[in-house]
């Protein structure tokens, strides 16, 4: 408790921002390939429930079980994303409606609740959860130590993911191809890039990231399962991608800001300061609208990174 309030808020911003970061990275991959995925919330919830199921049912070494749980959560998110990909890529359905359908199907009143109930997971403490770890005693560092280190393992993994995705999109052939598919599928097709394949792959991998993001809640932040555990984090993740101009490194910064906003009211309350929590909770959404307006006003030279073909199906014969 001898940490200043800034440190406490920043540390909780990192903790609460991590699920947002995972989900936003997934959404970023899908959107960069031109697929708008409004089903993130549903994918996160299914990832959360399946990850939690794994730690409850699989016996063994804690580290192994948690690794398995993360893979199961990723797989669950990927399977749900596959539905979305099939509908919007192969069947050319409206991406908005399909994404919302995914959230209704998998979300708080859908499959995640069904699974949680059927697998009898509710209201039980997790048998394994991620502990806070402090690599090389870095937590002792002044200021940055308690904020960035002494966090659960998933926080460090998310940093690796940010770096890998940033390098992937800017430095590798497939990464550049994804961007081509997202900007101009027709041109990409003419280059010989398999547009449908890229869109499938990135939507599915994006869903896996969302599943891991959901598992952050059920295995790390609040290690338990209740219906609607993520409480709208999926929607904030969608906002975050825009807020970060579709760039992974900015997603990291934005996620911690948004995470801090959502944790701030509780921290303040614990110190006897009462400010309406709604004020802080609304900030991510308002900030995203403001960023969108700035982007679309064209004050900046280029559109700041919104994939040009975002949300439009690609059919070779119809342009």
């Amino acid at each position: 408790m001898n940490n200043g309030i800034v440190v406490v808020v920043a540390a909780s911003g990192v903790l609460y921002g991590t699920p947002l970061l995972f989900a936003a990275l997934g959404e970023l991959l899908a959107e960069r390939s031109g697929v708008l995925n409004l089903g993130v919330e549903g994918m996160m919830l299914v990832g959360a429930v399946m990850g939690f199921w794994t730690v409850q049912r699989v016996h063994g070494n804690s580290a192994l079980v948690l690794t398995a749980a993360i893979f199961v959560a990723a797989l669950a998110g990927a399977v749900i994303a596959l539905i979305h990909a099939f509908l919007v890529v192969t069947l050319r359905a409206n991406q908005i409606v399909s994404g919302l359908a995914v959230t209704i199907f998998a979300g708080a009143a859908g499959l995640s609740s069904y699974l949680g109930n059927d697998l009898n997971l509710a209201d039980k403490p997790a048998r394994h959860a991620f502990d806070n770890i402090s690599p090389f005693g870095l937590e002792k560092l002044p200021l940055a130590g308690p904020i960035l280190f002494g966090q659960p393992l998933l926080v460090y993994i998310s940093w690796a993911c940010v770096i890998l995705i940033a390098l992937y999109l800017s430095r590798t052939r497939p990464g550049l191809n994804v961007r081509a598919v997202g900007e101009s599928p027709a041109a990409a097709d003419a280059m010989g890039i398999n547009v449908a394949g890229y869109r499938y792959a990135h939507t599915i991998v994006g869903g896996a990231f969302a599943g891991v993001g959901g598992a952050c809640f059920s295995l790390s932040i609040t290690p338990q399962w209740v219906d609607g555990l993520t409480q709208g984090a999926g929607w904030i993740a969608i906002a975050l991608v825009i807020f970060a101009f579709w760039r992974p490194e900015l997603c990291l910064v934005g996620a911690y800001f948004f995470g801090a906003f959502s944790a701030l009211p509780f921290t303040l309350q614990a110190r006897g300061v009462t400010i309406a929590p709604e004020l802080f909770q609304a900030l991510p959404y308002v900030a995203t609208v403001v960023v969108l307006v700035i982007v679309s006003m064209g004050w900046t030279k280029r559109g700041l990174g919104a994939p040009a073909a975002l949300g439009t199906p690609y059919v070779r014969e119809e342009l």
Partner: protein
Amino acid sequence: MSVRIERRLEQPRWLGVAVPTGSIVLALLLTGAVLLLTGHDPVHAYHRLFNAAFVGKDALTQTIVSATPLAFTGLAAAAAFRMQLFNIGAEGQLYFGAIFAAAAGLYLHSWPSALLIAAMVVAGAFGGAAWAAIPGVLRAFCRTNEIITSLMLNYVAALILNYLIFDSLSYWRDTSTPEAKVFPQGKLLPDAANWPSWGIVHSGPGLVIPLGFGVAVLVAVGLWALYSRTRFGFEVQVLGDSWRAARYAGIRTRRKILAVMCLSGAIAGIGGASQDGDFRHLLDPRGLQQAGYGYAGIVIAALARYNPFAVVLISLLLGGLQNAGYALQGADFPSGLVGVMEGLILFCALGCELLRRYRVRVVRRAGPEPSVPATEPTS
């Protein structure tokens, strides 16, 4: 052999009925498979679902209660989506309608009932339209994508709603008793603000129709007339089909965007007013947010292919599902089944929509295929 998907040059009329019906049947089969896989008896579950939604005592009445807000948000979505204007903010616009209508109901408590109800409808429509005007103006004048702004504003609206009741001593909050200060809730509307309902069938299971549902049907008729019988509607359709053609024809796109956005918001707002007047009789943030009316409305509009009358019919179907979900909650009924079913119906409807617009043909490799390259492009 290969499968080809090619555009239909003309769409046979029977497909417009066969495709939605087929997709609902397919969804029921898929849900049955989910139930079987998880060790439930699908026939038993469907039987109970159907009873709770349509057959049992008061079932149909409750179904209409659940269907009323869905009809409004469905019509709101249909109004905007017709023009390819993707207003997914019906959720927030419904909240704002409820806030404004509750304010009108509380403030004008001395007015005669009929006038007060009319005032609530107008206030609700105004509230919804005002909230929808934000993404509308941004889209019309800053070219900001309305999908994300209207989505984000849903959450802002929900937080404002919570603030009014849970975290402030606003005009809407009941502060008359000590308990009300501990357990925050909205101020009760005056009796004159309660919307009437009519018992149609008194014997058997019974059927009571609330005023709100009647208003929804009227709105559907009005929307149909506006879109198929007026110049405004024609211009909206042209804009929906081809933005560029409309511009060349001299149609004022900015005005139209703003008008359609506000119209859509107003319809959702009346849905909020109906929630206050018909069912809840106070501003009830939890109840309004629980069901996700706005999102379900988009789904309904898509299923109805933006036809207002079909929206009302399908809202009855999904309303029945939601009502059955509430009625069978707990007990031994699998929770979340209703969401799974709604989702599957949608997936099937979206998937089968392809069959209406395209035809799937299995072609032999030997035949001449000028438009399909012989090899798949590699990455």
